[in-house]
């Protein structure tokens, strides 16, 4: 500790981000060859804008995966907050848009707190607990919407501005995404609470012995994830200016896929925000790429599934080989 290691070529090639960047470069080149129309500033910004929601969800999901859990209710939370915000906004057009952002955060926070209560304090298996709440949130979302749709003419400008207004030529939703990335980076890397999330995921028992309250940390991670999901629900509706209860279906899968692509270990305790950013960029390029090619849209599900499996398998193999190498260095393996 404390000793600065020299940067060598092998160190760069061995780090996980190198592989990710290489993958991203390959994808970009592939996209450039097949669809050159992708390379204009406008279309790239467009691509990022339409995928920004996934980035927010992935950061939230990452917090939970770091604790060793999983949350599959974020798609439903997104839908619930989107529907509540849209309905109230359409009924009270005079209220400024910032109120709805706060409301979305509160709704998401409540949903996340409920999950956190079940997983943290009642010790339910995260998968099963969030499976149940996924059903429940989606149902509540339908009840609140009454099956109604909302269309662009019902949206007020100050609401839409949070996603589409361009500041310095970049849409507001991207500024929010960048802010969340930076905040998450600082939170996970440089605060006590953030480090505790890693501690819980790495070794639950020893962190408990060290005096970390596991329930509280899990609860916190769940609440943060819920708040991000709620925020992304509001931003999603603002971005597309349409809303119904069925938005955000299976978005949790994409968020998990981004995390895994970004090198977050599914068993918890490993993963960095910069990896998730690269994973997010890769997923954005892939989805955009698929949507550009005619006749490929039916392939999108299968391709996404295959990518997740390949990424997890790669993740496990690299982890195993790293472990073996560490053992060899210590002389435990011949």
């Amino acid at each position: 500790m404390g000793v600065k290691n020299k940067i060598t070529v092998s160190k760069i090639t061995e780090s996980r981000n190198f592989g990710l960047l290489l993958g991203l470069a390959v994808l970009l080149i592939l996209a450039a060859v097949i669809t050159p129309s992708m390379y204009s500033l406008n279309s790239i910004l467009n691509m990022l804008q339409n995928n920004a929601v996934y980035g927010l969800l992935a950061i939230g999901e990452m917090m939970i995966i770091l604790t060793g859990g999983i949350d599959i209710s974020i798609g439903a939370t997104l839908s619930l907050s989107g529907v509540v915000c849209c309905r109230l906004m359409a009924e009270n057009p005079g209220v400024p848009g910032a109120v709805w952002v706060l409301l979305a955060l509160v709704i998401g926070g409540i949903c996340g707190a409920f999950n956190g209560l079940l997983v943290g304090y009642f010790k339910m298996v995260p998968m099963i607990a969030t499976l149940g709440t996924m059903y429940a949130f989606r149902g509540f979302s339908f009840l609140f919407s009454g099956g109604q749709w909302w269309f662009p003419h019902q949206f007020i400008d100050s609401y839409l501005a949070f996603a589409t207004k361009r500041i310095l030529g970049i849409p507001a939703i991207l500024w929010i995404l960048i802010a969340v990335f930076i905040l998450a980076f600082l939170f996970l890397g440089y605060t006590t609470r953030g480090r505790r999330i890693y501690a819980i995921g790495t070794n639950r028992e020893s962190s408990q012995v060290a005096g970390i309250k596991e329930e509280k940390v899990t609860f916190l991670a769940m609440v943060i994830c819920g708040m991000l999901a709620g925020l992304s629900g509001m931003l999603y509706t603002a971005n597309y200016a349409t809303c119904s209860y069925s938005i955000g279906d299976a978005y949790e899968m994409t968020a998990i896929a981004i995390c895994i692509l970004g090198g977050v270990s599914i068993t918890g305790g490993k993963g960095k925000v910069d990896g998730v950013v690269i994973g997010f960029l890769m997923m954005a390029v892939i989805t955009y790429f698929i949507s550009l090619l005619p006749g490929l849209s039916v392939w999108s599900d299968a391709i996404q599934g295959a990518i997740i499996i390949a990424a997890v398998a790669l993740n496990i193999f690299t982890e195993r080989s790293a472990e073996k190498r560490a053992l060899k260095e210590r002389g435990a393996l011949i």
Partner: protein
Amino acid sequence: MSGEKNSNTAPVRDLTVKQGFKLSKFLVSWEMVLVYILILINIVLIASRPNLYFSSGTIQSIIQSGMDVCPLVLGMILILMLGDIDVSVAANMIFASMATGLCCQAGLPALAAVIIGILAGAACGMFNGVCVAYIGMPAVIVTIATSMLFRGIVKIVLDVNVLKQFPGFYTAIAWTNIAEIPLSLILFLIMGAGFVFLLQKSKFGRKLYIIGNNPTCAEYSGIDVKKTKLLVFVIMGAMCGVASIFFVGRMGGSVSSTMGTGYEMTAIAICVLGGVSTNGGKGKVYGPIIATLIMAFLTYTLGLLEVDANTRKIVTGFILIIAVLIPNVNKQLLANLKLKFIYKGNKNAEALNNRTLEEVKALKNTIAETRKDTSLSEPDKGVKIKKCEDKIASLQKKCKEQTAALLKEQREDERKAKERFAVK
């Protein structure tokens, strides 16, 4: 603390396998609770729609409506028993139906098409199994990804088309009654019996319990954990193939790529409601069988009470949560509450009380044993029982005193701390 002394006071573990039939225990077992719930739902249904309930064919159609998910439930029991989970079952089922449908379209005989469908399901299950058991990927992630993959493949092959050629007996299985009993229920019970045998009586089933409870222990006792896991996933896949028969029949002999979403959640919810632990190693087949019927009646009753499909989703979600919570609530939460309110957060007092309770229980057991013991004469028995009772009384007295002392100490400490900080 010598070994001999310990064996006298510590409760001896009961190693007899059969504990005998006790009516009081049987009546509050989880399976019986499920039966009560089922009866309760029926009473609600009778009270709200008496004409409908007693008209012919209603109960049969209720049962038929819930049977399309039953093979998935049976397979899911085995998966949950391992402590794993499989959320790709619905996609797998659609994949298997597609295989059968394509074979029928190509003009293969019906039986061959069905077998190919089941084999396709088993192959998908094998893919999951290899990923989970041999590569060591987490089951949740693998099956989430494969559910996208399988459904994606169906989407690629079928696009927006609908397959309509299926063997004729498919619809017969889902819709006919034999002597007023739905054929699908009969088949379900036969399969259920098979699974009871597999899980409770066969070597394979007992292995699953060991693996679910402690995989490392299972590995060391010579069980090939990887192979068993793979086999379970293959069985699950084959059951998905069987489920496709029920499902396609229920849908009137057609299949498209968007059908059957959410079936995996229903299957898991039913298993959890039926008392199968999601941590693995706990549960029986009877529970989920009754829970399948409960789910069918519940969905139908809610439908009759004009509760729409999405509200029913909320109910399903909360049932899932509550079913998992109940076992947790009475153990952990009670202990926590007791610690907080009776012992005022003093862990020493809690530990002391718990230990005393155990010791008293052991002594009471010895009293009961001496009463039953015929080899001792009456006066001897009396003396021995008296001795034990005295011991219990003294233990309880001692425990009370010590708890009071501990609590007093704690109060004193708190007062001192307060004083010290109040001055500054």
